[in-house]
C-alpha cells in the first residue's frame, strides 16, 4: 500500500517536471542564471543600504536591494506593532470602561478590514490627500514632511580618525556601564539596597558621549535636505509609500497582537494575583514579577506567527509602490527577463529563510520563558 502511494506520488512529481521542461522548450525559454550580471534597465528610487546607479546596477544587485528593503519594512513593522499591540492590549483590560471600549473598537475595526484596503486607504485617501506638495512642506527645523515623504538630515563622517576615537570612547563607556550594573546586582543581593541603575547608566553614557563629541571637535557632519526644483535633494528620505505601508502594517498587526496580549494577561489566574497581594507586593511589583512573566509564555507563540504574517504581508507594498522584493524582483525583473521559474523560486526561498530565522530566534526565547514542570 505504502509502496503504491509512493510510486503514484513520484510519478506525479515526475510528470509535472516533464511538462514544465517541455513547455519551457516549446516557448523557447532557457532557464539560466546568466541574466544575474546583466544591467537592470530600470530605476529604483529607494535604496538606502546599497547604492543604486541606473545603467550600472545589475539584476542580482536589484535582488539584494529588494531583500534589504523587505527586511527594513519587516523590522520597522515588527518593532512598531509590538509596541502598539502591547499598549492596546493592556488598555483593553483597563478597568476604565471608556478606555477598554476604545481599545475594543480599535481592534475590531483594524483586524476585520482587509490589509490591502487599509494600505491603499492610508496611502491614497489619507497621506497623499492631506500632505502638502514639496514646495509647501511642513517644517520642523531641518526636517521636512510633504507628499513625497519625510526628509531628514543624515550624519556622515567628516574626520575618520576622530570618529574612530569617539566610537572607542563610547565603547569604553558601555563596558564601564556593564561592570557597574554587575556590581549593582551583586551589591543588591548582598545588602538589599536597590539603585536605579538604568538611569545612572543612561546619564553616564550620554554625558560621556556628548563631552567626548565636543572635545573631539564634532567628528560628524550633517547632510541637510535642500529644496530642489521638484523635490528635496540630499539628506535622508523616508518615502511616503514606505511610511504608509509601515503605518498600515503596524495598525493591522498590532490589533492581532493586542488580542494575544489580552489573552496572555487574562490567562494568569486570579489565585496568582491574590497570592501576590497576600504577601504584600504592591501593584507594580505584582505586574512586573508575577503577571508579565506568566503572561509572556501565552503571548509569545501566537505573536511569532503575527511577526511572520507581517513579513509576508509586506509584499502588498506593490499596491503603493514601495520597492521591496516582490515589487522589484518578482515584479519588474520578472517582466524584463521572463525568467519566471528561477525568480519565483528565489523569492520563495527568501521569504522561507526570513520566516524560519524569525521563528528560530523567537522559539529560543520562548523556550527560555516556558515553565518547568515534571
Amino acid at each position, binding site marked *: 500500500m505504502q509502496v503504491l502511494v509512493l510510486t503514484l506520488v513520484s510519478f506525479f512529481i515526475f510528470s509535472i517536471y516533464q511538462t514544465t521542461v517541455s513547455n519551457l522548450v516549446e516557448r523557447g525559454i532557457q532557464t539560466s542564471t546568466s541574466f544575474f550580471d546583466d544591467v537592470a534597465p530600470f530605476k529604483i528610487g529607494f535604496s538606502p543600504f546599497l547604492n543604486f546607479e541606473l545603467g550600472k546596477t545589475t539584476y542580482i544587485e536589484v535582488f539584494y536591494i529588494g531583500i534589504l528593503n523587505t527586511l527594513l519594512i519587516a523590522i520597522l513593522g515588527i518593532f512598531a506593532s509590538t509596541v502598539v499591540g502591547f499598549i492596546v492590549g493592556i488598555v483593553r483590560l483597563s478597568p476604565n470602561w471608556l478606555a477598554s471600549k476604545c481599545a475594543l473598537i480599535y481592534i475590531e475595526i483594524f483586524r476585520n478590514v482587509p490589509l490591502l484596503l487599509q494600505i491603499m486607504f492610508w496611502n491614497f485617501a489619507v497621506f497623499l490627500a492631506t500632505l502638502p506638495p514639496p514646495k509647501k512642506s511642513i517644517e520642523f527645523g531641518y526636517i521636512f514632511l510633504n507628499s513625497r515623504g519625510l526628509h531628514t538630515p543624515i550624519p556622515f563622517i567628516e574626520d575618520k580618525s576622530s570618529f574612530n576615537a569617539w566610537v572607542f570612547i563610547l565603547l569604553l563607556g558601555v563596558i564601564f556601564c556593564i561592570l557597574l550594573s554587575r556590581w549593582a546586582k551583586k551589591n*543588591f543581593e548582598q545588602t538589599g539596597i536597590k539603585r536605579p541603575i538604568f538611569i545612572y547608566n543612561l546619564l553616564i553614557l550620554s554625558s560621556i558621549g556628548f563631552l567626548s563629541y565636543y572635545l573631539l571637535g564634532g567628528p560628524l557632519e550633517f547632510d541637510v535636505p535642500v529644496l530642489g526644483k521638484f523635490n528635496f535633494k540630499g539628506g535622508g528620505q523616508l518615502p511616503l509609500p514606505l511610511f504608509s505601508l509601515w503605518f498600515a502594517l503596524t495598525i493591522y498587526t498590532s490589533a492581532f497582537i493586542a488580542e494575544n496580549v489580552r489573552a496572555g494577561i487574562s490567562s494568569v489566574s486570579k*489565585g496568582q494575583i491574590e497570592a501576590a497581594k*497576600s504577601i*504584600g*507586593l504592591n*501593584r507594580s511589583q505584582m505586574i512586573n*514579577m*508575577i503577571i508579565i512573566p506568566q503572561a509572556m509564555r501565552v503571548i509569545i507563540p501566537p505573536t511569532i506567527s503575527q511577526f511572520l504574517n507581517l513579513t509576508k504581508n509586506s509584499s502588498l507594498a506593490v499596491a503603493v509602490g514601495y520597492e521591496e522584493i516582490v515589487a522589484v524582483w518578482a515584479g519588474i525583473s520578472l517582466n524584463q527577463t521572463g525568467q519566471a521559474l528561477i525568480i519565483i523560486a528565489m523569492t520563495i526561498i527568501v521569504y522561507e529563510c526570513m520566516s524560519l530565522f524569525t521563528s528560530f530566534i523567537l522559539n529560543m526565547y520562548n523556550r527560555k520563558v516556558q515553565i518547568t514542570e515534571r
Partner: protein
Amino acid sequence: MTQTTKAKKVNLDTNPPIIKIDKLNKWFGKFHVLKDIDLQVNKTEKIVICGPSGSGKSTLIRCINRLEVHQEGSIVVDGTELTDDVKQINEIRSDVGMVFQHFNLFPHLTVLENCTLAPIWVRKKSKMEADELAMDLLTKVRIPDQAKKYPGQLSGGQQQRVAIARALCMQPRVMLFDEPTSALDPEMIKEVLETMIELAESGMTMLVVTHEMGFANKVADRVIFMDEGQIVEQNDPKNFFNNPKSDRTKLFLSQILNH
C-alpha cells in the same frame, strides 16, 4: 490616627486583641454574605472556623487581609484599621500570612524564589539574608531538598507546605488558612496538618477555615460555627463537639462526623 488608637488600647488593656472585627457587613451584589460579624482574636490564639459551604467563612478571613472589601463595620489588625489606603493595606498584608486552598505558588519561580520574593522586595532584605531565612523555614516544613525545584515538580502536599513556608518568610503576626487541605489527597492531608500543628505549637496566631475536625479538636482554642453569614456558635473544642447548643450546629456536626 492609627497611633492614637494604638496608644489608647494599650492603656485600656495590657493584652489587646490582634484582630478586632466590629459589626462587619458585606454584600456580593444583593447577596448578604456577612451579617453583623463581631470577632476578637487574641495573640497566639488558634481559631478554627467551620460551617457549610456558602456560609461566608472564607469571605470572613479574606476580609482580614482585604482580598475582599467589606462595606460596613470595621476591621482592626494589630492596631491598624483597614481602609482604602493602599499603603496601609500593603502593610497589613505583609504582616498577615495567607495559605490558599489551591496553594497559588508562582509557577515561574523556584521554591526558594517563591519564598524569598516578598522578603527581598517588600521587607528589603538582602538576597543572602532572605535565602538563609527561607532555607530555615523550608527545613521546618521538611522540604529543604526541593528548594531548587519548580512548584510544578512537587506533589500537592509539598506545594502546600511551600506555600506555608512562603507566608512564614514574611514573619507574619497572624496566619490565615483558607481550606488548606481541601484540594489534597488523604495521605497528603496528614503531612500538611502536621506542619500546621507544629506551627501552632510555636505560638503563632492562626485562623483556620477547615473541615478537619480532628485538627480543630487538637489545636484550636476556640471553634466557630458559621451559617448564612452569621456566627451561630463559638466555644472551646471540647464543649463545641460534646454538647453543641444550637440545632443547626448539631445537624452540621452529625453530617460531617458520620460520613
